[in-house]
Every structure is written in structure tokens, then in C-alpha cells.
């Protein structure tokens, strides 16, 4: 096994993700400046001792906005993942346990959701329901449901063929009980990996929605909105676009590394050996 590379990606991914979470939670308690206050005198300033990352076209501190943006990205993607897993995992378990028409219903509903380009439909949803964090969560979360439902069903189906499940059935246990006692715990590792990856996709989706103005609304800061604002000024103050862009790239990279590292660590095929 090439263990060193795996643990390196896990360590780097975990470190970046930890910085992201600490920044997001820390911004609740303290940011260098209030992001709702304009300071026109300092507008479009470059990085300085007072403003590490400079200030935007309203003179708001970029570092503070990135911290607050991290909080919003975290909140939106986390709730979206919980929504997707909360609906998708039980649906997948049910489909695998009951088979038959329930299975068909669940899987065909998934196909319908999968048939639409997710970001476009998310834009449509928020355009209809109105922009805002809550609607962004719903729009992103809906597309997480089939991902979790399919993964859960597929993996659960293979667990249902195990002898220990047969043993549980000869012990008189029903499908619901077996699903929760034997199947779900067996899926934890792959679900955690998938949740991490969906989380990073959620951050991109949130940035995309707020970029087109349908995500978190001002005065709350969002990485996507910051990019959109900086776009017109890219010739004057390029750093204003670079910092939120970097925040997105580094965070998503970190979460993906964490997901891959976890996948190697928690690979279900190695499960039996441990």
C-alpha cells in the first residue's frame, strides 16, 4: 500500500477543512471589521497593515468579508448535505429493503431529478421562490437527495446479500430493524466520504447561485457575490477577485482531498480485514 500519499492528502485536506471551519465559526464572534459598514475613504485599497486583503469598492474589509462568506458557504452547504442525506439515505434504505414498486418509485424519482441540469434548475428554483439563503439551501439540497439515495441503495443491496443479514432474518428480525442494525452502520464510511464530496460541491453551487445574485443577499457576504462585484473592477483592483476565488478553490480542494483521504482510510473493502 502506498500509505504515505494517502495519509498526506488526508492530513492536508483535514488541515484546510479545519481552517475553513474555524474561520467560519470564528466570524460569528469576531471579524476585523463590520462587513455592513461602508468606508468609502478606503475603497479599493490594496493590502495593508489595516486591511490585510485590501478593501472593496465600498471600502469594506475583504478579509472580514471572506470570513463571513466562509460562514455562509458552510451553513448553506452543510444544511444542503443534511437535507440530501436526511431524505436520500432513508429512501435508499427503504428501496433496498423492500424492492418491488417502492424501489421503482424511489429510483425513477431520482432519475427525474437527475434528468435536469442541477445548477440551472437551482437558479430556476430560487428565481421562483425568491433569492435568499434558505431557498439556496433547498435548491442545492434537492439535488443531493438522489446522490445519497442511489449510493445508499446500491451499497445496501450488496449488504443485503451478506450471510449475516440472512442470520438476522433467521433470528426473526424484520426489514426495518435489519436496515438500522446491520445495513446503515455498514454504510457509514461511504456516506461520510460522499457527504464530504457533496459538501464541496455545495460550496461551488452556493458560490454560483450568489454569483448570479440568487444566493445569500447583501449585506451578508458571500464568495460568489464578491466575485461578481470584483468582476467589473478586475482591471482596477484584480486582488478583489483573486482573494474570494482563492478561498473557493482552496476550500473545495481541501474538502476533496479530505474526501479522498477518508475514502482510502475507510474503504469498505478493507472493512472486513480490520
Amino acid at each position, binding site marked *: 500500500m502506498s500509505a504515505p500519499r494517502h495519509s498526506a492528502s488526508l492530513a492536508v485536506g483535514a488541515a484546510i477543512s479545519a481552517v475553513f471551519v474555524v474561520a467560519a465559526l470564528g466570524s460569528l464572534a469576531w471579524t476585523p471589521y463590520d462587513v455592513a459598514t461602508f468606508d468609502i475613504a478606503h475603497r479599493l485599497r490594496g493590502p495593508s497593515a489595516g486591511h490585510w486583503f485590501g478593501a472593496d469598492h465600498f471600502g469594506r474589509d475583504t478579509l472580514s468579508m471572506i470570513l463571513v462568506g466562509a460562514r455562509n458557504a458552510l451553513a448553506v452547504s452543510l444544511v444542503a448535505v443534511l437535507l440530501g442525506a436526511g431524505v436520500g439515505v432513508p429512501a435508499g434504505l427503504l428501496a433496498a429493503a423492500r424492492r418491488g414498486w417502492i424501489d421503482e418509485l424511489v429510483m425513477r424519482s431520482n432519475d427525474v431529478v437527475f434528468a435536469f441540469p442541477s445548477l440551472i434548475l437551482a437558479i430556476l428554483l430560487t428565481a421562483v421562490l425568491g433569492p435568499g439563503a434558505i431557498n439556496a439551501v433547498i435548491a442545492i439540497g434537492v439535488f443531493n437527495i438522489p446522490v445519497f439515495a442511489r449510493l445508499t441503495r446500491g451499497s445496501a443491496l450488496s449488504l443485503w446479500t451478506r450471510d*449475516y443479514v440472512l442470520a438476522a432474518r433467521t433470528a*426473526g428480525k424484520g426489514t426495518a430493524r435489519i436496515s438500522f442494525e446491520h445495513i446503515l452502520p*455498514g454504510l457509514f464510511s461511504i456516506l461520510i466520504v460522499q457527504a464530504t464530496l457533496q459538501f464541496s460541491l455545495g460550496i461551488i453551487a452556493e458560490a454560483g447561485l450568489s454569483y448570479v445574485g440568487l444566493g445569500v443577499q447583501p449585506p451578508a457576504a458571500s464568495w460568489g457575490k464578491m466575485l461578481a462585484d470584483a468582476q467589473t473592477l478586475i482591471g482596477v483592483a484584480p486582488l478583489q477577485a483573486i482573494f474570494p476565488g482563492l478561498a473557493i478553490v482552496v476550500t473545495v480542494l481541501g474538502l476533496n482531498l479530505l474526501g479522498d483521504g477518508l475514502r482510502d482510510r475507510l474503504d469498505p473493502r478493507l472493512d472486513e480485514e480490520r
Partner: protein
Amino acid sequence: MALLEIENLRVTIGATPILNGLSLSLEPGQVLGVVGESGSGKSMTALSILGLSPQGAQTTGAIRFDDQDLTRLSETELCGVRGARIGMVFQEPMTALNPVMTIGDQVAEVVRLHQGGSRAKALEIARQALERVGLPAERFPLGRYPHELSGGQRQRVAIAIAIVLSPRLIIADEPTTALDVTTQAQILELLRRLVREDGAALILVSHDLAVVAGLADHVAVMKDGRIVETGETSALFSELKHPYTRALAADATRVPVRRGHPASSAQPVLEAENVVRDYPGPRRFLRATIPFRAVSEVSLAIRPGEIVGLVGESGCGKSTLLRTLLALETPQGGQVRLSGQPFSPASPRALRRHIQVVFQDPHGSFDPRWTVERLVAEPLHLLNDRPSPADRRRKVEAALAKVGLPAQAADRHPHQFSGGQRQRIAIARALIVEPSVIALDEAVSALDVTVRAEVLDLLAGLSDELGLAYLFVSHDMGVVRGLTDRVLVMKAGRIIEEGPTAEVFANPQHPYTAQLIAATPDLDRALAARG
């Protein structure tokens, strides 16, 4: 001049020694049988010769093949040896072939890899190789895919790949372990013929002494990564110098001791009456599916304390019948009765306690996350009044004691136990609700001979002590012969013969039964045949 000479071969993975100074030599055209229990290093020896030992393995010593030290060759040079000068046949015919390549291309690939040339030419050579392994052109065109073939036919393709370039050495690692007895006999016969025709040497790795005794000129007995005894086959088995070889031979043929054979007039604990089990056939567009009849009007009765064997090859419906008898599936016709009461998936939980089951795979039968206590206690779910935690613990410990495991075993996880111990845990799990009949589904098939003999002794003792009846499902005629009172032979969903075990084995009525018995490898018979 030896074709292959291994000298003081040591392989370690991490700090664990796998091979401890193994030496052997093989003459051209000789068949060497390598026997030993799992973990003795048999397969590692085979893989090391080909330079295929797993990543991270440290190898020292010399492997001289045709005066060339294989351990000193680069990976590229080894690739020229593998397939061309040394052919390899693996155990699992399901995974040894590429599912998305036709059998013709898979054999031809080896030819083109080593000799180049056109695809048409390679396919022609492949055709000849497939003919030689008994896959004639009219029934097995080159365009067939592996999934269209049976296990035995796939193993023939794997053998064709190994022999297509007429290698001087063929290594076969448990080539028949995954196959049914009649198929096994055919594949062994095929290997014997090919080796004789080509004058190739063969290393046959197997856990089955009878298989090795039937085919090998020389035998090497392995234990803990070294060869403990080696010699000419007849001489080795007639002398049995080394105590380990003697123990292996004794365990392979041991018959568990049983005390009483119960009176056959008692009310049966488990009965089936004209049970029919159909599966829906493949879905067809706008037309009714044609169901597949897996079990066809099977009737049987098992009386208290009786051990009944159910034998048959894979696909004969044994497993489906078993699941129906366990009321995990509803039959389309007929009825199953447990302790005199109708037994179906809808039966009350309390009735189910009268029948329990032990599966084949000691690794797959347990949820790897649960402790042994929780696992063994799982069937207590069937009791109407569940025991308190302290009571539960006592019951688990009592069940573990019955199968010869210490009480502390309850706190550990299944992966901390060996295969034989896990099978004991599975038996403990079955015993905890005091059933009257236990279904044993190939329960000792995955175990080494010594461990198998111990588990069989345990089962025989438990049956005597507790008056337990068993339905012993197995493909291993030798084990069935030793343990059971009565035997049922199943073929294509029907019971084609049944009777007291001794009578059926001595005087089989159905030709299929006779065929099964004749195909079963038997150490004494194999040795007698070589004279």
C-alpha cells in the same frame, strides 16, 4: 538437470515471515503437488516463482528456472517469462478472466504479447488451444464471453491461456477448489493429459490431499512457510514419516464418532411436502416471463436427533430449498412444517426458534462491527420474553462454552478469531435459542482439514448431547458419508435419491449418485490407483 530449483527462499511482509527458507527442485515433466493448510505459504510460493509476490514483500534466496535466477530479473524480463515459459492457473474461474473480452481474444492476447504476429494468426493458435482443453469450435466459438460459460468451462479457458505457448512449467493454484466434484474430476483429468502430451512440469497447489495424490509424482508438504516433508507420492503417503503429514492424512479421512442413532418413528421436527419454488425468469418485452423452477416437488422429513445430508452440485437448488425450509422465502406450492406446525415467512417469531442455521463463510456470517456477545445473542430476539442483560450474558457464555470457547470471547470482535473459531461462534449463535434442528449450509467447506475434523467432532457431540437434528447441506461427499445418518441427493431441483447414508454410498441406485461418488477425490483410492 532440474528445471526449477528454489533455494532458501524467504519472503517477509513487514515483520511477518511468510516463507522461511523454502527449498525445492522440480525435474522437467514432473508433477509436484504442494499441500498444506491455509496460511502455510503454498500460494505465496507459487506467486514468488512468477515474481508476483505482493507489494512490500521482501524476497531473498534464489529461484533458478532453466539456469536463470528469476529473483534477479527485472519486471520487463519477468513479463517475458510469465505466460510464455511459465503458465499459471488460478483458483477462481469467475475472476481470472476478463469479463469484457471474448475467450478467443484472451487466449490470443498471450500469443501476440509474446510472439507478435497478426491477430488472425493468434486467433488460429488460440482456437487450437481451446480445442485441446475440450472447448470445440462448433459449441464454443472464439466470440464467446466468459459469462456465457460455466465455472468449469471458464477454468478450461484459463488453462488454455496457460498452455497456449507450451510453457515448460505450469503452476496451478487450487485450480479445482471452486468447482463441483464432477467438474473437478474432469479438470484434473485435463491437466493430467496436457502435462503428459506437452512434457511440461506442473506445480499443483492444493489443500486437498486426495487431489494431489491422484495427480502428483512428488509431494511437498508445507507448514509455517517451509517444506516439512517431501518425497515420491506413494512412498510419502505410505510412510507418513513426518508427524504433521500423518496428522493431515488422518484428519482428511477421519470419521466423527457418534453415539446413538435415533428411532425413526418419532414425529419429524422438520418436514417438507411437495415444496415448489419458482423464480421469475428474465423480463421479456410485452410478454409473460417464463418462471424458472428452482425446487420441484421436494418432500423430506427430519426426525429428532437425526443428521440428514443434502448433496448436489451448485445450481441444483440446494440453497433455494434451504431458504424455503428456513421460511425466508414462500414456496409456490407445498408446505413446510416445523415441529408439526406450518412454517412460512408469516409464522410467529416464537416458532422460528426451533430452527437455526450455520453458513459456509466464516468471514461473511458476522456483522464485522458487532461484538461476539451481541452476535451470539441475536437469535434471542425470537423469544417472547427477552432475557435481562445479565441473563443474556450468561446465556451467551453458556453457548460459547458448549462450542469450546472461553467466556472472554464474548467481548471480542469476529475478526479476532480464526476461521474455525468463527464457525464455532456461528454454532453458538445457533444453539442459544435451543433449536431442535440446525441447518448447516456447507458449514465446514471453507475450513482446513484439521479444523474441519474438529468442527465435525463438535457437531457430532452436540447432536448426541442435545438430541439436535441437522440438515447438512454439502457438496463434499466424503464429509457427508462420515457424519450423516441419511442422505438426499438433489439434481435440477428434485431429490433423485434418498436413503440411509451407508446404503446409498455402497449401492447407489441413480446413475447420477454413482457419478458423484466416483468423482469424489479419495485418498485411499487415489493411492491404490497408482499401485
